[in-house]
């Protein structure tokens, strides 16, 4: 696992370095023009957020049902990343929507459910910070509920009539748009992996320090 970190980092950095070229060369969308290019970062941000939410939920399940302490470190790292990538998505979306829809925000099914899911992971972080000892299990339960939100948010745009584009848009992209999109998606997933590894490393170091403190007290 450790050996993968550096290659992943290099690949991710290369993808991000190339991304502006790819995005600039992508064709304009016919009705939205330049502002549609936010799409290349907006959708991958949410993809990374969903991944973080699922990683957090699965790690939480491992904590509760498997009793694995090390899963808890991954859960906390993933929750932080879920908040980070969610924030990216929540900020880039309205910037696009302001031009495309004329409003910064709409309380439709997709936007509302996405915001709520993001709030669940913010609550997770608050719980870990202020809940005191023993909040690992409770936060794991919270993470499970948060992960249950992911399919709901994803399909909300297909089930209800919302102002947000449907999921079929990604599947039916023209190749000239599909290639930069794929590139950015891979870049964001790589970024997610890199940041997750770094954040888990922080948790590991902190855990080692705690163990050492405990051994001193003996």
């Amino acid at each position, binding site marked *: 696992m450790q050996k993968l*970190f*550096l290659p992943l*980092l*290099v690949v991710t*950095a290369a993808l*991000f*370095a190339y991304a*502006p*070229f790819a995005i*600039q060369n992508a064709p*304009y969308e*016919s*009705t*939205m*023009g*330049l*502002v549609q*290019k*936010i799409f290349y*970062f*907006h959708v991958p*941000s949410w993809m990374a957020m969903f991944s973080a939410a699922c990683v957090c939920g699965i790690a939480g399940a491992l904590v509760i049902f498997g009793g694995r302490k090390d899963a808890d470190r991954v859960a906390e790292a993933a929750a932080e990343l879920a908040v*980070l990538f969610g*924030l*990216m998505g929540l*900020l*880039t979306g309205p*910037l*696009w929507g*302001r*031009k495309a829809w*004329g409003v910064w925000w709409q309380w439709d099914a997709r936007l509302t459910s996405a915001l709520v899911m993001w709030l669940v992971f913010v609550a997770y972080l608050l719980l870990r910070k202020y809940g005191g000892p023993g909040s690992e299990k409770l936060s794991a339960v919270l993470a499970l509920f948060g992960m249950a939100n992911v399919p709901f948010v994803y399909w909300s745009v297909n089930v209800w009539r919302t102002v947000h584009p449907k999921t079929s848009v990604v599947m039916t992209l023209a190749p000239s748009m599909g290639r930069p999109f794929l590139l950015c998606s891979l870049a964001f997933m790589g*970024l997610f992996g*890199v*940041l997750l590894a*770094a*954040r888990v*490393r*922080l948790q590991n*170091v*902190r855990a*080692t*320090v705690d163990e*050492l*403190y405990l*051994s*001193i007290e003996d």
Partner: protein
Amino acid sequence: MKKAALLLMLVLAAVPVFAAQPPTAPDGFVPASSLPGQEQLPAAPLVIAAYSIVWLLVLGYVWSIWNRIGKAERELADVSRRIAASQRR
């Protein structure tokens, strides 16, 4: 620590690449079917803002992790030293 330094170098290297690529200026590019009077709101500031936000958030987070790992590793070294010192006695 070497890994962290490499990470920082690569990230910093990407920034000038991005900076040298100005987001496309609106002049000369006319969207395919939009008419001038439709929406006066210029898109370029929004696009620039969106990409800047993403970059700032990523860099800010990387910096935050860097700081926290540094602090934790210093603490680790400190505690290890104290243990080693107490064991020598």
